[in-house]
């Protein structure tokens, strides 16, 4: 897009990605960690769309569609894992899952 400089769009995407990264690092609740991973994936897709809009090509949007697909698959498996983990340990604290003995 000509009217919005690509730098500003990429800065926004970088800020969103950094916020998601901080969320993953700071929060200990696995549900919030999954939410933060969604934020990071969304920011990466935003960067793709911005770059695609810069050169007026469809490839950026195609890449965003693939990121969307991957996010959907990842969330379904991740939430099923969280439910199963909660069923086993009765907590969502990520530090409580340090014993991978099944």
């Amino acid at each position, binding site marked *: *897009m*000509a*009217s*919005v400089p690509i730098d*500003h*769009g990429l800065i*926004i995407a970088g*800020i*969103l990605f950094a*916020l*998601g990264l*901080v*969320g993953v690092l*700071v*929060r200990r*609740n696995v*549900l*919030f960690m*999954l*939410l*933060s991973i*969604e*934020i990071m994936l*969304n920011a990466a897709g*935003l960067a793709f*769309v*911005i770059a*695609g*809009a*810069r050169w*007026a*090509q*469809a*490839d*950026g*949007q*195609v890449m*965003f*569609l*693939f990121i*969307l*697909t*991957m*996010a*959907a*698959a*990842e*969330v*379904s*498996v991740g*939430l*099923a*894992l*969280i*439910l*199963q983990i*909660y*069923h086993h340990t009765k907590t*969502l604290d990520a530090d409580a899952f340090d014993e991978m003995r*099944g």
Partner: protein
Amino acid sequence: MNVVFYIAAAVAVTATLLVITRTNAVHALLYLIVSLLSVALVFYTLGAPFVAALEVIVYAGAIMVLFLFAIMILNLGQEASEQERRWLQPAIWRGPAILATVLAIELVYLLVAAGGRLPSTGAVEPRQVGIALFGPYLLAVELASMLLLAGLVGAYHLGRRVKPQAQGGET
């Protein structure tokens, strides 16, 4: 068009900042939905209407509903009604409502003042995206469908309730 982009980006950053600082999962989810909606508006101002629609439908719709279901399933029964009463207080939904109102004003502005037209230069139509998707990226589309199938099977397998005595080494 520039002002709309910057306001939507500011709303996105604010809402995301509030997502990672909330202690209640449902509150964080509300802010995340607002953040995704504002990112959809950013997509629209960048000339990507197809992706903006998909962001609202798939991300803010389907994936967030998945999260909501998981939170509801995880929610424990005895304190649920008392928690529900606290959630209905205005202080809870005031923040997301304000941010969503900003987005709604921007949307109305886009529809009325700008006539609903896309930014003329550099807009990528859904038609071009579809042609690219089923032309050079056809193999990737097939791989994505297999990924979704794997996700479906994996979620079904993991989501089963395992009997306490029947659980083997597979889980």
